[in-house]
């Protein structure tokens, strides 16, 4: 009887795991969004020196600065991308990209930002 109760529970857990894996953020997808929307200010290498940076009043964030970026949660980065810099008490020059990407796509982009800032040498 106990065994019969455990089997469905295991099946349920396995199914949940698969569902979570399917929705896990994909950094490789996020790279395309980074190229399209972020590199113009944050730079091809993410160092904050994009083609627009020289003329800006506030320098874009250096995403390769691990020490600082590691203090930001994924939720912080997600909010900054979706709602813009002002929403996280940063520069208004960082626009909100909510009309350009879905939440799922922004999660992919956050995963890509993590590869630049916080996974170097891993």
């Amino acid at each position, binding site marked *: 009887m106990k065994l019969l109760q455990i089997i469905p529970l295991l099946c349920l857990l396995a199914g949940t795991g698969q569902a979570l894996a399917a929705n896990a953020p994909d950094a490789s997808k996020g790279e*395309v*969004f980074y*190229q*399209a*929307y972020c*590199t*113009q*200010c944050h*730079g*091809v*290498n993410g160092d904050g*020196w*994009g*083609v*627009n*940076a*020289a*003329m*800006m*009043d506030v320098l874009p964030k250096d995403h390769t600065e691990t020490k600082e970026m590691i203090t930001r949660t994924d939720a912080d980065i997600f909010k900054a991308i979706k709602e*813009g810099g002002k929403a996280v008490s940063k520069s*208004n*020059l*960082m*626009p*909100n*990209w*909510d*009309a*350009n990407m879905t939440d799922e796509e922004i999660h992919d982009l956050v995963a890509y930002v993590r590869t630049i800032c916080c996974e170097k040498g891993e």
Partner: protein
Amino acid sequence: MKPSRLKKNSLALLSATLLLSGNAFSATGNEAGKQLFEKSCADCHSITSNDNITLEQRLKEKAPTLYYAGNKFNREWLQSWLTAPTRIRPGGHFFMDNVKVTDDGDIIDESKLGKHIAVNAEQAKQLTGYLMAQTPKTELIRQEKVTLGKTNRTLGEKDFHKFKGCGSCHQDEDGYGGVSGPELYTSVKRLQPEFIASYTKAPEKWDPKTLMPNRHLNDNSVKKLLNYLSVISQ
């Protein structure tokens, strides 16, 4: 069927065909312009719907879509520009194609920027006729009521750069501002004011994969911005 009736029916059919051809002709604009477009422009510019474009496709485009050219451009400007085209996007259509990474930061590699072909006055007229007939977004234009007015240039500049952040990607004077977007100090000469207003409010309604953010500006904010664009375009 009697021969006379056959003749009459054929004539009616021919007339109907000609009438329909006429409608099709007027719907797509100038036929010579269409042929010229397909021969000289279609390699780089798309004129078909971009409703279902993917971001990957968007990034591979060589030039801006002309799908809604008739809702976007000022006719006189377009016709004149085609005879003597100048660069409008300092970084090219997609800046990433022309970026060079240097120790002093990313820059646009000028040697990668191509020149737009020029046509003669007659060809420019034909092309303009065809392009200005491309108006699939007329409903969006109709929703805008724009009257350009005065503004304080200094306050407008502050608004453009500091508060709205437009200057991060766009220039409001030659050589001043971002390079990834098109220059805006010629925008009111180039573009219909209603297009600028509509595109600024909701760029994704024009280009689902636009590289421009929707900053959720209200009508008054857009009006202030347009007045500034008008002042700097003079």
